[in-house]
């Protein structure tokens, strides 16, 4: 008993003050929101397009510069490295989530879109959101960093957000993985088991667009191909802070 109390004293209080206080420190090399400077882009170069393993970068017809789809992006920096002109740079901005798929596409001129949820849903879910997590074919990294939100350092429960054991108890699904063909039935049944009104949150490159497995015959290239998605959280995997910020923004709690 004394050992337990002593350990408790040694370990101290660890829950972060975010969002009331500053966010936890991100690593120096953290790859966050990409920034595109079209003025630097040498036209018809295409190095970044060729370097991207998932086809996240596209040239814009009739315009200078490129666009980068954060939904497909693995944040591997291959484009940044391949570009000699410095057109693409990954910032340390961790706020990546969006409610509309098209808002994940980063261009020079496009500014970050606001995350929106209708007033009725915010009133319903804003102070109590119970989620059923469904892992559907990824690599378990998104699951691991979603799990982290339950640890004492993040303490997701203080926002009224909780992962529950049954879809019947849930207000929505948090889906990770590209949704394999083998998981399709399970995902659909779980969605049907959640009572209305319900949310779907797609976490990670796989759940948004298929991730590294995009185009494989064995997968569905993301949750949105089967279900209506209310929040997309990009990353491979997203940092826990990115996931938390997305959830809080969705509920208007940020």
């Amino acid at each position, binding site marked *: 008993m004394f*050992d*337990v109390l*002593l*350990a*408790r004293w*040694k*370990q101290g209080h660890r829950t972060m003050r975010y969002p009331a206080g500053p966010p936890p420190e991100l*690593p*120096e*090399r953290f*790859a966050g929101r990409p920034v595109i400077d079209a003025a630097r882009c040498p036209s018809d170069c295409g190095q970044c397009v060729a*370097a991207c*393993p*998932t086809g996240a970068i596209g040239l814009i017809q009739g315009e200078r510069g490129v666009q980068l789809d954060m939904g497909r992006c*693995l944040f*591997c*920096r*291959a484009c*940044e*490295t*391949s570009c000699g002109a410095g057109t693409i740079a990954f910032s340390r901005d961790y706020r990546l989530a969006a409610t509309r798929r098209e808002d994940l596409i980063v261009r020079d001129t496009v500014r970050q879109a606001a995350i929106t949820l209708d007033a009725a849903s915010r009133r319903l879910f804003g102070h109590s959101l119970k989620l059923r*997590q*469904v*892992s*559907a*074919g*990824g*690599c*378990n*990294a*998104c*699951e*691991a*960093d*979603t*799990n*982290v939100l*339950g*640890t*004492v*350092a993040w303490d997701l429960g203080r926002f009224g957000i909780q*992962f529950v*054991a049954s879809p019947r108890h849930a207000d929505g699904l948090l889906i990770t993985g590209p949704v*394999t*063909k*083998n*998981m399709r*039935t*399970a995902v659909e049944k*779980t969605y049907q088991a959640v009572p209305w009104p319900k949310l779907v949150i797609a976490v990670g490159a796989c759940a948004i667009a298929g*991730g*590294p*497995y995009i185009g*494989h*015959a*064995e*997968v569905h290239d993301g949750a949105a191909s089967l279900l209506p998605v209310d929040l997309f959280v990009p990353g*491979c*995997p997203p*940092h826990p802070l990115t996931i938390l910020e997305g959830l809080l923004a969705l509920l208007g709690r940020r």
Partner: protein
Amino acid sequence: MSTVRTLTVYNGRAFRLADCPLLGADEFRQEVIEGIAAGARPAAFFAYPQPSGACTPHAPRGDCGMRLFAALARAKTGDLAVVSADVGREYAAITPECPQVHLFEREIFEQWNIRPIGHPWLKPVRSPMRGKGDSPHLCEAPSGPFRQMGTVPFSTPEATEFFQMSGEEVHEVAVGPVHAGIIEPGHFRFQCHGETVYHLEIALGYQHRGVERAMRSGPGPRSIHYAETLAGDTTAAHAAAYCRAIEALSATRVTARGQFLRGIALELERVANHIGDLGALAGDVGFLPTLSYCGRIRGDVLNMTAQLCGNRFGRGLLRPGGVALDIEARVVEQLRQRVDTVARDARSAVELLWNVPTVMARFDGVGIVPPETCEQLGLVGVAARACGMPCDVRHDFPYGLYRFTHIPVSTWHTGDVFARAYVRWLEVQRSLAFIAEQLDGLPAGPVIEPRIKGDSPHLPERPGGCCAQMGTVPFYSPLAAQQAVVALIEGWRGEICHVALTGPDGRFAAYKVVDPSFHNWSGLAFALRDQQVSDFPLCNKSFNLSYCGHDL
């Protein structure tokens, strides 16, 4: 004892495919059985299309055009025996003699429709979907006792036949694929009498995303990303296995500093996962202090990995020739201090477990795997070391940094949940000491081989400064033709085996990934025998196996 008809090869060293003995299916079978009887363990056993490439899996019986390949790891001598055989539509199963290969043979049947005659339980491994136009490498539906296999285009892994028990008051419990926590999908079928489990069968395949199939068409821009996501919590170890395969096939040297940073990344991965597991084990028996502290400490270790490369799982760090990113002296100093902090915090959190009677009552004697079962199933890693088997790739087949700096093999003899927890704690302490030692002795120099042989255009210029060195180093140039390599790595769960074979064009003719979970899932099934159903979560967590690493 017959004359030796296998080729002796070494971990991570390339050999010519022409040197690999090509036997008849019966001789091949004999060699594998004798090798395993002499103490070897099957590290990999798979089939691939014959180099002539004339035949398809749809070819008629006896004219299949497939080749079997086996790599047997011999810990006593620190080498591997490889052997291959041309095979028709069927061959005599090895499983009745050597249960270690039971899942390999099921996999060969599922992937290529080569039937191991006499296999006692020839059912799907991953139930890959066979819709029209899907997965063209898959064969037509076989017939047999498992009628669902392949015949129903959209059946799922649980829609197959399970071993069943009958009798009064016997009942069956089915769990999954969607579980109660944030866990990967799998289906578990328990045969019970009262609360006692007589048999557990595990049906997987829900995470099957075709990643191994896709790797066969490499190397290409996505190959390293596939390797890093074979099992996301084992990013560094799987990337290391892939890199070592590429390095062997392209005669690439890894720089000294690169080796050190790889070693540090691999051990950080082990420490993070083991600490997380110890916390989760505490949570499964309702001891919340250790659960709470370990969850946080695990995050601290992941953040150390993120200091190396920006990603908490080590994505983008390991690349053929070394590591993609260097660290400054300032970061080395920070990491060094953090190692001490983690060691202190982890000790205070974990050692509580061994002194709390309520925890020990649930850990002791639960989920026992006897050493004989461990050997017969060919278990690896923590699960095997917890049965007293001193098997550790770092010790038995040393590679990279472990050739110069040794980590003691951690074992415990009881084979129960306690043993699997305690081995993890021993390894955490030894890995932290190892990391501290490497950080203190980090050699100077480049972190990646500056000129990868035969790969001129792909290495970007690296001006000084750490930020300028961020990024990835793609590697898609042709490899040495018609060679092969077996790369073994001790991941945090156990032995990871990648086998790469190249064709005449210097591309992969075959690429096989064996995650430790592939060997160890059967161990969990046996650990549950004669246990209570309610002990399943605890036993499951004590193994903590990968679904995605198995399903590929």
